[in-house]
């Protein structure tokens, strides 16, 4: 890697697979269940978290030597909340349409445990540049899982992808529906998101035995 040293590159690559925030660190599960009924919502959420975690990690890292350890969690919370509110206000003023699409996610971003998890586990102990890479890596890892889950839930639940019907029309019975195929409404409900995440965890651990915890 010309641009990044091997150690730095791993900060981005590790969370994509063997140290994935959702499937390995088990962070951010709640939002992965809540908003993955549609592929578009998954992508929007992934990008929002990418921004907040990238910038937030840098801010926390810059402040790491002056944050009193007794109230560090509260300080982290204030940093996330402030960032999210600033983004929301600026979008409302200059990109109103986009802000309406994102408004649902604002609350979800603040409570996303990946963000607090990475602040606490990484940014408080590392320099800004490494923290930034860690933030980008983890939010990408989070986004990948979100997009995989969103893809399957929208495809099997609604028969569409990004809103476009890809399997035919269920009402006039064209495409796949002509052969008796039906959308699975259960895919749209949160329990199926949990099951899809479960399947991803299973596939990942069966391919790499080192990830299986011993008890």
């Amino acid at each position, binding site marked *: 890697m010309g641009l990044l040293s091997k150690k730095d590159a791993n900060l981005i690559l590790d969370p994509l697979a063997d140290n994935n925030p959702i499937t390995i660190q088990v962070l951010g599960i709640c939002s992965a269940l809540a908003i993955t009924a549609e592929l578009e919502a998954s992508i929007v959420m992934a990008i929002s978290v990418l921004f907040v975690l990238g910038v937030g990690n840098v801010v926390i890292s810059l402040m790491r030597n002056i944050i009193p350890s007794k109230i560090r969690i509260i300080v982290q919370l204030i940093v996330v909340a402030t960032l999210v509110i*600033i983004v929301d*206000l600026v979008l*409302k003023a200059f990109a109103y349409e986009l802000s309406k699409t994102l408004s649902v996610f604002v609350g979800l971003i603040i409570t996303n445990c990946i963000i607090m998890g990475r602040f606490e586990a990484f940014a408080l102990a590392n320099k800004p540049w490494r923290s930034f890479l860690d933030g980008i890596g983890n939010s990408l890892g989070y986004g990948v899982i979100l997009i995989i889950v969103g893809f399957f839930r929208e495809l099997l639940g609604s028969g569409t992808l990004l809103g476009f019907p890809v399997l035919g029309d269920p009402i006039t019975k064209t495409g796949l529906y002509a052969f008796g195929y039906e959308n699975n409404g259960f895919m749209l409900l949160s329990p199926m998101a949990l099951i899809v995440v479960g399947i991803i965890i299973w596939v990942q651990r069966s391919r790499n035995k080192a990830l299986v915890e011993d008890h």
Partner: protein
Amino acid sequence: MEKRTDKNSYTIIFAIGMVLVVGSLLAYLASSLKPNITENKRLEKQQNILYAMGVNENEGTSANFVSTDKAPQLFTEYIKKQLVIEGSTAIEDDKAYLIDVKKEKAMAKDPSYTRRLPLFVGEKDGQTFYIAPIRGKGLWDAVWAYVAMDENMIILGAYFDHKGETPGLGANIKQRFFMDDFIGEHLMNNGSFKGVNVAKGNADPTNKDKTDNEVDAIAGATITGDGVSAMIRSDLKLYVPYFKTLKTN
């Protein structure tokens, strides 16, 4: 030796400083961006009202408003009258679209208060549209709508929106497939107001029967759908007396 950042005095000073910095930063941003935000909301109301009466840029299956720079001009072109209905009187008021339905609804809880109901009268291709803003509760937060009707309270168009319904489920009330189902539905049934129910297990999923006072619900969005039904029942009912006076004149 104790670290400087572990001292109680340091912690308290840090906390106070942080609150001051963050608080003033946010207050400054909020107040300096407020004019832009209010203006955006005003344009959005105009776009919503125009959308309900069919003045929009819909393509395929996606719902598109007229652009914000065209909205004010189209609004004055298509909306002929803005009314404020108070009890049995209807007064013309060209700022009626700025009435805050949420505030009016809250104040109407006091029985001595007469709620001000805005109603917009639009005209397009010889058809008169009566557009009413309504508001209610979904699963997580507010849901609201602009419903365009003819003088018999048959729905000609509707625009639904929400504050925080679940993406992919309740949030789909602002999708074409849901909103378009309302077009042609009757709000009255044999002379009395019945509303339009968002029904599960509907026997008529393709919505051919327009007089059954029902549209098909969205799978996985029961509470949002119930909220939409309730909002139509409670808020549009308030307009029934006005529509009765249209008949007698």
